[in-house]
């Protein structure tokens, strides 16, 4: 029972990283119609940036949690302004390819600067212990990662449902053309929304930083699992991204615990099942065909 709880928490912590990043991916897709392949690379940049902040500026986990998303937001704004924007009127495949090229570029740049072996990072003081009694002992860091991502997801949800900006973003996600026709300047929100989505990927990276080696390659399999997450949740759906993120995290953790050889394969089998039963994803709407 204690083990099972531990696996569950581990899954929810990993699910939190997926949920945060998938949320960013879904918001960007909703408003811009862009599937950002470099989302995994941005997640990696978030983790690398926290390691660099610690090593060179002696800024630990807590300041990084604030600074890194701001840095990534700026990075996202630049990326949208300089590159992504030009391809928005064209088929979304072109931006998919552009961001793929950017991924290769970013990963190898980081590799050249910081090497392939990975940067060290430790669980910050205050999160390094375990809580619980007897059979049940849980990592404080994992508990924090899980609750923090859940809180951020709820915060974003509140932002989207309770504020005017959120209403515009939701309307644009629903139908960008019709929203413009109602006199709302959708284009004005494109750049900040893109930056915000990238910042969420960066935030997931910071949260993940204390959890094992930080390598330039860590975004590679992450982005592919992220794609599985949004296919399972339904790419147009913000709730779907969050729920599927935690679901995939859990499936992966139980897989690692009970069938380690097939841990990662199970995720893709889950995706295949969802495509088979509900091609539009668990929370997605059917496409007109």
């Amino acid at each position, binding site marked *: 029972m204690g083990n099972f709880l531990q696996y569950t928490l581990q899954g929810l912590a990993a699910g939190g990283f997926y949920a945060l990043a998938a949320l960013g991916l879904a918001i960007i897709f909703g408003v811009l119609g862009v599937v950002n392949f470099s989302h995994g690379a941005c997640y990696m940049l978030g983790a690398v940036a926290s390691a660099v902040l610690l090593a060179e500026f002696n800024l630990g986990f807590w300041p990084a949690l604030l600074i890194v998303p701001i840095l990534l937001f700026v990075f996202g704004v630049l990326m949208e302004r300089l590159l992504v924007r030009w391809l928005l009127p064209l*088929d979304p495949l072109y931006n998919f*390819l552009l961001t793929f*090229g950017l991924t290769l570029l970013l990963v*190898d740049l980081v590799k050249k600067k910081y090497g392939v072996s990975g940067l060290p990072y430790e669980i910050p003081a205050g999160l390094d212990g375990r809580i619980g009694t007897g059979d049940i002992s849980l990592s404080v860091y994992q508990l924090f990662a899980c609750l923090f991502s859940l809180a951020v997801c709820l915060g974003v949800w509140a932002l989207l449902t309770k504020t005017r900006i959120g209403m515009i973003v939701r309307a644009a996600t629903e139908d960008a053309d019709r929203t413009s026709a109602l006199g709302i300047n959708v284009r004005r929100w494109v750049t900040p929304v893109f930056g915000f989505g990238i910042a969420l990927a960066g935030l997931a990276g910071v949260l993940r930083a204390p959890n094992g080696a930080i390598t330039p390659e860590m975004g590679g399999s992450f982005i592919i699992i992220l794609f599985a997450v949004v296919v399972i949740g339904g790419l147009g759906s913000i709730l779907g991204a969050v729920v599927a993120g935690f679901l995939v995290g859990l499936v992966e953790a139980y897989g690692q615990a009970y069938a380690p*050889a097939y841990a990662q*394969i199970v995720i*893709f089998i889950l995706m295949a099942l969802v495509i088979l039963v509900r091609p539009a994803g668990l929370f997605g709407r059917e496409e007109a065909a």
Partner: protein
Amino acid sequence: MSLEAETAHLQLDEPVIKRGSWLNRLRILGALIVLLALPWYVYPPVAFDILCWGLFAISVDILLGYTGLLSFGHAAYWGASAYTTGIVAIKTGLPFPVAVLAGIIMAMAIAVPVGWLSVRRTGIYFAMVTLAFAQMLYFFANQWRDVTGGENGLQGIPRGFFGVGLVETDSFYFYYAGLAFAVIGALIAWRVVNSPFGRVLVAIRDNPARARALGYNVDRYKLTAFVISAGLAGLAGGLFAISHGFASLQELDWRTSGKVVLITVLGGIGTLWGGPIGAAIVVLLEDRLATSGFEGTGIITGSIFVVVVLLFRRGVWGTARHYLGAELLARRRRY
């Protein structure tokens, strides 16, 4: 989702060079001369890599350029065939064309269920789903160490060729043996694209709803194109494994899927000819970078990809055809 979302608005020109025209004959003659002369000027194993990647890119182009489907997981078929070809060649010692045939069959067999699931989604979703399934195969190969050798890969794949010693040991002659099969592959691709079946694919690419309304079973056409494409990717991957004498996990990696898409886009999508041209550029560039000891090939290839997608979407062959086409049309009007 509106209907438009399902249609791929790729920037494509219709070909202007007519079949049977002198220009077309000249083009084919030129390509043959270049392919035959290649190992005299380029280190033969590198020349062979160009053949393999060129054919691989052609297989991607059948889907991307002619069906409007971006498969971002074609490494699955290239890699599955590379492993199968290697295992058959090692275990049985059969001549390499037979081993490659086994690889092709394996690639197509895997493509049937993957394609069947993937064609349920279109556009960008198709790219994500095919990528995810390819990654699944990667993890699978990584786990199944007894057969695939895990991270070490398959070593020492023999290059049997009916006892013809020159082909088996000298990569210069092996190039010509491989060239024959690569040309057959390219001819199959050309035949597929220029058949009534190929015209239906183009109709589906341009307007799936209309093709469906005309009574075509769109999903079945897509699946057939997908399996044919996987077979060609398998041919390319099998030849690649034989040429290198090993098959590794890199063959199944998502970067391999991305690299072949880069080659296809760089050469020009919807052209078939673009594949080999893009392959020549990328393979020669990577070879040059590797020999010069430059680390971080991704910085160069990634930048090329970004520039091509931003400024040069027609690709090399597509651009040439565009301007040549404008010239030809203008001349036709003049007379």
